[in-house]
């Protein structure tokens, strides 16, 4: 022992502790106790007592193996190596220090680690007998027992108004309607509340709310989330699958099995297969040449998410080293990873039954046979250029990947299939970048191609409707690719398995003909009724969504970094019941919601004692007050304004529309403004708990955003009185004081609107457009939209351009914004002196939706420069389908002048005419004095659709069609309204509507509306 204390321990401290003791454990190894040395690190035991030659420690310090040398800084003096050898030869004696007793059990875990609560089996517990009178259910007895221990008392029961609001928001994410409130409040049946819960659970609105919780957890999104952020148009069936599963009360174990292994357990059932989209949510970049790196990150993402979501363990920490705080080994991480390494992102499957696929194939074969010749001719025109593009892209891959891609598909091994699949996606992108109409340069060939295409179209009657694409995964094959853990001693192949501390039993996996069967094994294990983690984790999540806080406060972290359960026995009780009852969520909701604990009021202020004992309300001495989350707010706004569109399922809609939030488009890089401001997650990582933030920029949006203001206006239009407003927004009558306050507000507002100064007298129409006069701009009311294909024809004269870089706007259907659907639109303008497009250039600005459903802003400059003071016949033809804008300009003051024309290519844009701004001549929808037209707009018309050139005419009297025709010489018709320096931009609502709108807006942003408290 003296030898150990004098020689060995100091040596270990000096030479090894820095990297291998309590603070760092490189390679998973600690040397500060013999137990650790014996169990070793990633590469096995470090020391075999009595056998120095078999001890890795000695091998390392001897510098015998080039890849395995310790300490890395330099070889130890021989004398020190000898000391270690001698000590191990002696049997490696280590003095027991009773104060620091470490019991290292099998697998290298300490007894303390093994005893950690979350790894213990779920116990069968009976509810405590508290003897008190409070409470209705077993849940309450657990809560009451803890409260009495903590010297806390429960809050009184919430009144029926509070309760009905809570229940609807909780289960539907929507406020109750007036009828729903009345029905419950006036229900005399003693079982009224129970019936309410059953009724609300039975509604399809339930799935639309609770699916959102799950979508947060699986980081659901509908775009790639990287630079291009391409839209994932086939992701939504997964969202519908989740909603449907909740509505059908699908058992959780089945729900998990389908998502992890739907392809293995029911490959032919599209309703199950779609569940595997769960593994398609990682972010992706369409052109990343580092294919291997990208795939590695995708597998990592799947592994980390599964660990957090199902097991409540931050496995991610163990990717690079053994977990610092929990007994999760780096090997455990790789064991979990091994379940996902065989995954293959499939882009070739359809979401249909085999019979439907068969029918499709037969029909398609007919079409193919009938059109073979035509298509061959078309290919001959396009293929050389496409091949060139593909080749250029292909050679930019590393050579090994090129080789994989060039290999016949049936000769690829699993990893090659995965990687070649990713390469193929990129090559498909290169292929699709070829647009025949744009890229066939030879005019003759293009004409030929067009003719062929028309010929092809004649066979459309034979062509089957395309099948829905399947956004799913399978395995790449029955044999899994390598899953290597890199260690100093080389790579270790890690087989699938579970965290050793929970289950180290060997795993039996049965591969099928096409699949490794690994994920089925994982799903079976996660859904085992005796799994101590996954069962508690899901029950705790449900509790958290009801109460705002889980029994374990950190619901995705059950490890030591997380919080301890406040009511461990209750968690076990509910978990057992949930699992034994068949894993049904609805039963669990019932159990929780029927408790007195859930029915407590939130309206209880803590007295001094309570504030001291439990300020955070962990022991539920009242119901937790909560702010509505993003989707609840947005949906409630639509519900109370009477605009909520309850169309269920299908492709997503724009967030500025009126469908429920769960059905709005989830673009990772361009989220909906309102939802984002209210803390909707961005969809990059699994989110277990929403934040509730308050910022001035959020307040600005609520005060000034068009969308919310429009909801307020709708509500104002359907409210006949202050009472109506209160009932719609808050589900109750206003108090006397509130009524008086609101009334006074309305009166002030209306009085002021009436005092507004009279508008200037309007002068004649043909004086031209001039800033700071009553004739700044001309507002045009139209019934029809111009669409994405239209022509603007005009006779104009411009007297000046801006001396800086500002534009002069001839006509607009746009407010100048670039960020929202409401700002979609366009304008035709002339550049100023300092413009980077050079002065007097005619251009068009457009904001619309591109092919990836991104908002896109484009400038199309004609590079035709006009002169000031001259009359022109100016025609702009917009064709979104042809990706082009054609400008044609002819000088009318020079007899015989030829028309100049320019075709400018643009990206394909849609929804150009869907913005909120009306059409204005001479400026934008929003007044901007420096951007006003200065001069004449003698005539102007907009014709929807494509226009033949022979319809154009420099004599406006000959104009026949158009969504409107403006001729300055004509008397002013009612569809035109002059807008001057003093007049408001938009037609005003009448004073009462305007005042009511403001009142409604205030109520819709109030704390009462935003909070369940």
């Amino acid at each position, binding site marked *: 022992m003296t030898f150990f204390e004098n020689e060995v321990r100091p040596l270990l401290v000096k030479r090894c502790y820095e990297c291998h003791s309590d603070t760092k454990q490189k390679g998973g190894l600690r040397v500060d106790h013999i137990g650790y040395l014996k169990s070793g690190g990633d590469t096995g035991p470090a020391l075999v007592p009595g056998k120095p030659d078999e001890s890795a420690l000695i091998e390392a310090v001897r510098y015998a193996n080039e890849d395995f040398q310790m300490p890395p800084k330099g070889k130890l003096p021989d004398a020190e190596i000898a000391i270690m050898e001698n000590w191990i030869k002696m049997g490696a004696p280590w003095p027991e220090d009773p104060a620091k007793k470490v019991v290292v059990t099998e697998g290298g875990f300490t007894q303390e680690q093994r005893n950690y609560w979350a790894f213990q089996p779920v116990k069968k517990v009976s509810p405590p007998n508290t003897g008190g009178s409070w409470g209705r259910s077993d849940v309450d007895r657990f809560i009451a027992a803890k409260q009495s221990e903590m010297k806390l008392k429960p809050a009184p029961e919430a009144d029926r108004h509070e309760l009905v609001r809570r229940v609807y928001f909780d289960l539907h994410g929507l406020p109750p309607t007036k009828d729903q409130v009345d029905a419950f409040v006036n229900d005399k049946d003693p079982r009224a509340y129970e019936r309410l819960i059953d009724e609300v659970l039975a509604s399809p609105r339930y799935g639309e709310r609770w699916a959102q919780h799950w979508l947060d957890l699986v980081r659901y999104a509908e775009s790639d*989330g*990287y*630079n291009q952020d391409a839209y994932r148009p086939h992701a939504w069936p997964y969202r519908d699958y989740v909603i449907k599963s909740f509505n059908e009360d699908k058992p959780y174990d089945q729900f998990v099995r389908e998502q992890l292994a739907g392809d293995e357990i029911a490959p032919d059932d599209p309703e199950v297969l779609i569940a595997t989209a769960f593994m398609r949510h990682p*972010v992706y970049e369409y052109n*990343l*040449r*580092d294919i291997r790196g990208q795939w590695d990150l995708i597998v990592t*993402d799947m592994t980390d998410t599964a660990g957090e979501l199902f097991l409540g363990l*931050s496995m991610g*920490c163990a990717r690079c080293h053994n977990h610092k705080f929990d007994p999760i080994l780096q090997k455990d991480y790789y064991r979990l990873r091994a379940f996902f390494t065989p995954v293959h992102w499939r882009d070739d499957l359809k979401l249909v039954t085999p019979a439907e696929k068969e029918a499709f194939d037969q029909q398609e074969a007919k079409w193919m046979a009938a059109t073979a010749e035509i298509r061959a001719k078309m290919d001959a025109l396009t293929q050389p250029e496409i091949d060139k593009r593909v080749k250029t892209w292909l050679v*930019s*891959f*590393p050579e090994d990947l090129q080789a994989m891609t060039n290999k016949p598909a049936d000769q690829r091994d699993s990893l090659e299939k995965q990687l070649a699949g990713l390469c193929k996606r990129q090559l498909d992108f290169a292929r699709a970048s070829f647009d025949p109409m744009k890229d066939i340069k030879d005019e003759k060939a293009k004409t030929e191609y067009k003719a062929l295409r028309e010929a092809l179209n004649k066979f459309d009657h034979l062509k089957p409707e395309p099948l829905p694409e399947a956004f799913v995964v399978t395995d790449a094959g029955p044999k899994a690719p390598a899953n290597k853990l890199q260690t100093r001693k080389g790579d270790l192949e890690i087989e699938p398995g579970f965290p050793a501390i929970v289950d180290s039993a060997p795993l039996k996996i049965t591969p099928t003909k096409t699949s490794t069967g690994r994920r089925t094994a994982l799903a079976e294990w996660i859904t085992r009724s005796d799994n101590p983690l996954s069962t508690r984790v899901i029950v705790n999540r449900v509790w958290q969504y009801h109460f705002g806080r889980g029994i374990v406060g950190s619901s995705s*972290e059950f490890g030591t*970094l997380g919080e301890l359960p406040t009511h461990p026995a209750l968690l076990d009780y509910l978990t057992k019941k949930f699992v034994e009852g068949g894993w049904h969520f609805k039963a669990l909701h019932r159990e929780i919601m029927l408790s007195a604990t859930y029915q407590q009021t939130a*309206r209880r*202020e*803590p007295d001094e004692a309570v*504030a001291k004992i439990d*300020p*955070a309300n962990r022991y539920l001495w009242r119901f937790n*007050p909560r702010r509505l989350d993003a989707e609840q707010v947005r949906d409630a706004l639509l519900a109370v304004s009477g605009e909520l569109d309850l169309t269920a399922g299908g492709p997503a809609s724009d967030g500025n529309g009126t469908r429920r939030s769960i059905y709005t488009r989830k673009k*990772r*890089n*361009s989220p909906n403004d309102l939802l984002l401001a209210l803390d909707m997650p*961005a969809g*990059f*990582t699994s989110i277990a708990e929403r*934040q509730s*933030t*308050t*910022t*001035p*920029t*959020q*307040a*600005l949006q609520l*005060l*000034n*955003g068009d969308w919310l*203001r429009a909801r307020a206006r709708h509500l104002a239009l359907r409210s006949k009185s202050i009472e109506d407003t209160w009932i719609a927004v808050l589900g109750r009558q206003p108090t006397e*004081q*509130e009524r008086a*306050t609101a009334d006074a*507000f309305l009166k002030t507002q209306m009085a002021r609107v009436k005092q507004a100064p009279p508008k200037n007298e309007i002068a004649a129409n043909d004086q031209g457009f001039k800033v700071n006069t009553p004739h700044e701009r001309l507002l045009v009311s139209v019934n029809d939209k111009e669409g994405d294909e239209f022509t603007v024809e005009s006779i104009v004269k411009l007297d000046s351009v801006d001396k800086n870089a500002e534009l002069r706007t001839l006509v607009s259907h746009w407010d100048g914004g670039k960020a929202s659907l409401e700002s979609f639109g366009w304008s035709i303008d002339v550049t100023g002196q*300092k413009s*980077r497009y050079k002065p007097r250039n005619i251009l068009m600005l457009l904001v619309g939706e591109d092919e990836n459903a991104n908002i896109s*802003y484009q400038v199309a400059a004609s590079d035709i420069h006009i002169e000031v003071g001259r009359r022109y016949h100016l025609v702009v033809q917009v064709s979104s389908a042809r990706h082009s804008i054609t400008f044609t300009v002819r000088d009318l003051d020079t007899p015989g002048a030829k028309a100049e024309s320019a075709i400018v290519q643009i990206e394909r844009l849609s929804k150009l005419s869907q913005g909120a701004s009306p059409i204005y001549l001479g400026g934008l929808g929003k007044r*901007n004095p420096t951007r006003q037209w200065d001069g004449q707009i003698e005539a102007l018309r907009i014709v929807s659709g494509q226009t033949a050139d022979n319809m154009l005419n420099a004599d406006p009297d000959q104009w026949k069609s158009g969504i409107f025709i403006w001729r300055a010489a004509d008397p002013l018709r009612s569809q035109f309204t002059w807008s001057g320096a003093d007049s408001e931009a938009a037609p*005003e609502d009448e004073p009462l509507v*305007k005042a009511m709108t*403001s009142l409604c807006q*205030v*109520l819709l*942003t*109030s*704390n*009462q509306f935003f*909070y369940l*408290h």
Partner: protein
Amino acid sequence: MHCHRYDLPNSRRDFLQTAGCGFGAVALAALMGEQAHAAPQQLPQRMARAKSVIFLFMEGGPSHLDTFDRKPLLNELAGQSLPASFKTPLTAAGEGKSPLLECKRTWKQHCQGGLWISDWFTQVARHADDLAVIHSCASSGINHAGGVCSMNTGSLFGGRPSLGAWASYGLGTENKNLPAFVVIKDSESTVVNGVRNWGAGFMPAVYQGVEFHPDGTPIKYLDNPKGVDRREQREKLDLLGKLDHDFNASRASNTELEARIRGFELAYQMQAEAPGAVDLSKETATTKKLYGMDDAATATFGRNCLLARRLVENGVRFVQLYSGAGSKWDSHAGIEARHSQLCHSVDRPIAGLLSDLKARGLLEETLVIWGGEFGRTPMSEKGDGRDHNPTGFTMWMAGGGVQGGRTHGATDELGLYAVEDRLHVHDLHATILHLLGIDHTKLIYPHMGRPERIDQNEGRPYTKLV
């Protein structure tokens, strides 16, 4: 919910009366106090000079080889392929084996410190003695999305807070009516990955960057709704305040409710004051000229630089200016033309910013950072361009207590790999926080039970800059 014991004023009026004294801190505390997590406890703040940061982000990847990192060997070997002694890198466009491309610049040593700077930055070069040039930066992102996300958040993917968010989380704001973290782009184009580059990630939204538009309305939603004037807005807020106040009165334990009233008041103040912060009409013609606002080619970035100075003066903690928003510095082909134009567009404005900050005594407390998401390769692409190079590139810092006129670290003889004092993005972030007086290992945000740091536990501050 946390139980914070802030002295809550009873009404809007009380609130506004207290506004004069120490309002900024109280407001911030109140605004974030009720969030999931409170601001970190008093960090043991090192003596630091830098109080605010202006990050000049050249988006798309400026070439270090043609600007600040002189490599004579490159021109000797131009046209040949990378010598065998260099490991072939995996590059974004797969140009590992393409011939080396010569640098066409003329280089000079500048000022006392004798820094080599090319003729693309002749104006900035006059400030050479203020620049600490780091030649050995490295990033994990080989393409724009990963690179820009990494330089901003330390991660290739979204989901983590950006550097500006960490800085405002660590230090708070010094201005009640402006956001702590402001972003300004030089065009309407979207920065790669969009708004999440200045997002708060898993932190509360108070820490996220707010985009300022240099023209017209500086902040989205700052203008009243159509047809609503300021008086009406005030009346609406008064009504809201009254309703909320009545509601809150019996719910005092829910501090979020009070914070919301303040949020609206702050918004109202911001409506009044934010336009002033970007109003350059009070700046003299001389100042504007200093920033290059008299020349169309430099006017845009010059204006943004001047705005940055005004924002920093107004107590904004972190300003990020994008040059070439939408990867315009990217130069896979025709680097001569692209870089000439872009370097020219920022050279005078940056020099102006440095001069102006210095003249006002602000440079000492303002850390100016220049760089992109990566540099460019010595290998050519498409004959006259350069591919992305994240394995070794240059950034420089000035002000904020940094010692100028010096270079740090080095790339190899061709500027491909950082070989000396390599500073990964994680180290850069740790270094920047260090310059702000924050020990980055102590600036922790608890998320999902994990103590998260800006560097994902991988960075070390480079302390030789001071």
